[in-house]
């Protein structure tokens, strides 16, 4: 899930490709403490969302593990009265993100991992609650794990939060899984994970890796030629999403998605217009790899070494 930020456009070159980068106000890495080497956190599932319980002040609630969000995001329903650092009409693209504001949270913890001070966005997350019928306090974004590696065992529903050694690696004794099927570096831009991929050996693409996206998404214009070779599974019309009267949905399946040095087959994707999402992520984005991608295996994201690993592979 992309969150929202106030930003200025900028262009940078990454791996030969030019990318629009939007900068926002720098935010120091959150200061954490906790007596553990590897924290084992049970995951709950709601649809294809990964839910982790966390405590804010004395309240415990559900948070979506969301690598598409740059930092902590709180649901306005429950945190509307938090102190405001600065108001901003963030996004504001279609008016569906009204009244997001920044706040500072003291006393946030995920089991034994505590944060002294955290910047957070407060915004309306009612769509998640209503879509999944689960009470959602917020989203856990990438910045919260900036000093760690996280491993998600999607099959056993466990999140491992690893403390790292001085080289930025998970200490050998703490590694839960070995011999990754896939190992690749990623770019962390505005705290969003970007994986370089290629489809059909012809189209290089930058994918945001978003554990909050329940469906892979791809920008139709950038994959128009690919779409003609894809198997179109279905098309339909979606009404009443945000302020949009109706959206055309095109669901497709394709083979030969290369990420790192591994090929993924039978990928399901929704073809859409990602302009606005690019703004939300702070980058132009060719596609978003979500549940259909990460459900293939146990994966580790090392935010210090900026490495993505996937163990096992399920078609």
């Amino acid at each position: 899930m992309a969150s929202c930020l106030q930003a200025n456009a900028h262009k940078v070159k990454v791996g030969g490709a030019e990318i629009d980068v939007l900068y926002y106000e720098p935010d120091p890495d959150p200061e954490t403490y906790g007596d553990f080497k590897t924290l084992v956190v049970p995951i709950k599932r709601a649809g294809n969302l990964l839910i982790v319980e966390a405590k804010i002040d004395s309240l415990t609630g559900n948070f979506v593990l969301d690598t598409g969000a740059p930092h902590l995001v709180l649901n306005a329903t429950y945190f509307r009265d938090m102190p405001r650092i600065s108001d901003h009409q963030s996004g504001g693209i279609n008016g569906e993100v009204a009244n997001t504001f920044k706040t500072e949270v003291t006393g946030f913890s995920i089991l034994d991992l505590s944060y002294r001070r955290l910047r957070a966005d407060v915004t309306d997350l009612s769509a998640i609650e209503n879509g999944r019928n689960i009470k959602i306090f917020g989203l856990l974004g990438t910045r919260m794990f900036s000093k760690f590696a996280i491993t998600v065992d999607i099959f056993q529903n466990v999140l491992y939060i690893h403390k790292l050694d001085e080289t930025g690696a998970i200490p050998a004794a703490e590694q839960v899984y070995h011999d990754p099927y896939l190992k690749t570096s990623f770019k962390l831009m505005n705290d969003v994970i970007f994986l370089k991929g290629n489809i059909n050996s012809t189209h290089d693409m930058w994918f945001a890796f978003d554990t909050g996206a329940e469906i892979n998404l791809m920008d139709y214009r950038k994959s128009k030629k690919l779409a003609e070779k894809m198997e179109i599974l279905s098309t339909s019309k979606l009404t009443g999403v945000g302020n949009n009267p109706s959206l055309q949905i095109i669901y497709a399946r394709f083979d030969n998605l290369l990420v790192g040095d591994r090929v993924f087959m039978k990928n399901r994707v929704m073809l859409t217009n990602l302009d606005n999402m690019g703004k939300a992520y702070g980058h132009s984005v060719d596609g978003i790899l979500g549940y259909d991608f990460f459900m293939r295996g146990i994966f580790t994201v090392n935010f210090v070494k900026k490495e993505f690993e996937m163990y096992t592979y399920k078609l």
Partner: protein
Amino acid sequence: MKLTRHIIIAMLLLLCGIVAYAQQSNLIAAKDELVLLIDLRSSKPNLFNVLTRAGVQGSNNTQVLKGNFSSLYNAGWKLKAKQKYVLQFTKPITVNTDRVPAKPYLITMSVKQTEGRPGYPANVAYGVNKFSRVTVWELPTGVTRFFLPGNAKARKVQLSGSFNSWTTSKGMMTKTDSGWISDIKLRPGIYAYKFIINGHWIHDTNNALSEHDGHSGFNSIYYRYNYTFKLQGETSASRVTVAGSFNKWNAGEIPLTKKSDYWQASLYLHDGMVLYRFNVDGRWVADPANPTKIKDDKGNTNSVIKLGEIATFQLNGYDDARKVCVAGSFNNWKPDNLYLKRVNDTWVSPLILTPGNYGYKFIVDGKWITDPANTCYQVEGGETNSFVAVKPNHTFRLRGYNNARTVRVTGTFNNWNEDQYIMGRKGDEWVMSMKLPEGKVLYKYIVDGNWMLDPGNKLWEPNEHNTGNSIIWVDGNN
């Protein structure tokens, strides 16, 4: 003429191509268009499948086979070409110009909405536990004890289930010399649970009842019992079972256990009226200890129990009335069915009702009246009836507004029907107790026609009218 021939040849080639392609795929994207091919020779299920994939809704889809394409036209498809049996429809791809929201989840949530509440099993008519080793049982105090044997080396064991919002940070179990225990107060019903050992989910391996957790595992299922069938005597019988309307009279399913001079079986039974009989070595008998019996169409005598809450209907005054009845949605509004008795100065009738929301009226000597002692009303089909909730799980309250003529409450629980529920005035507030569905409930008050958020509730979320909706979360175990 030449040009026409070229066009015909081109069309033929195109259609041959289409037919060949139709064998592989009947929905493709090409040149900013979606292309749909329909073979009129396809079977109805195949056609239905193709139309569903093409986003064509409607029950009269088979009309397509008869040459009526209105359902396709309504979904934005245009007929482009036609061969004898194969039709080609097209539709422009508009995703370029769609105003897509900035958050992926706004799309992905809407594509597939969650049905029901995963992890919260739907209620059932009855339930009997099945353990290979009993790990969950009721203590004499009435609380339910969950037990995980062994795991002496575990650092932390938690109990998580539908009774504690599937907590992963609370629900700590206590270590004993033989395992881990946790005591929980449960209402009768069905519950799903798992243990969490050192952060790892595990279902109860001693419990044979489970349901798929929707991913790669199972949730264990436990029924908190509320009823015990007892049959005195029959000590020489070798097998006694109970069966009834709740289990479709399956005589082989629920055996009674022999005690000193009686047989018994406990189970969970859903509220409502239950007919039952015992089966003693193949012979059906009604319950000799239960005086309430009903004869069925086949001449069998069944015993009857009514499970639920007692709701007392009371009408003061009407000293001279000859006959007072109560009728409501609980008895399909039958007028001469439930009689009130004259006790002291009032007419009363205690009824056992299934928890829920009911409209009702009294019938005094044939004249229908609302309950003069109740200011909560339910409007059904234009008719205003008195309203009562049996075993309500929430009370809506609105303080003040003394001069308001009517205050109504509406929300997701009644599909925002703004006329249905009229709140009653009690002291200095408007109130209405209701039985609400579990999970998230959105609602608003309507004071003399003006919609408003609940000023006594801090929780609200934005709505499409930019006026917000109040929120409550209804917990099943409260």
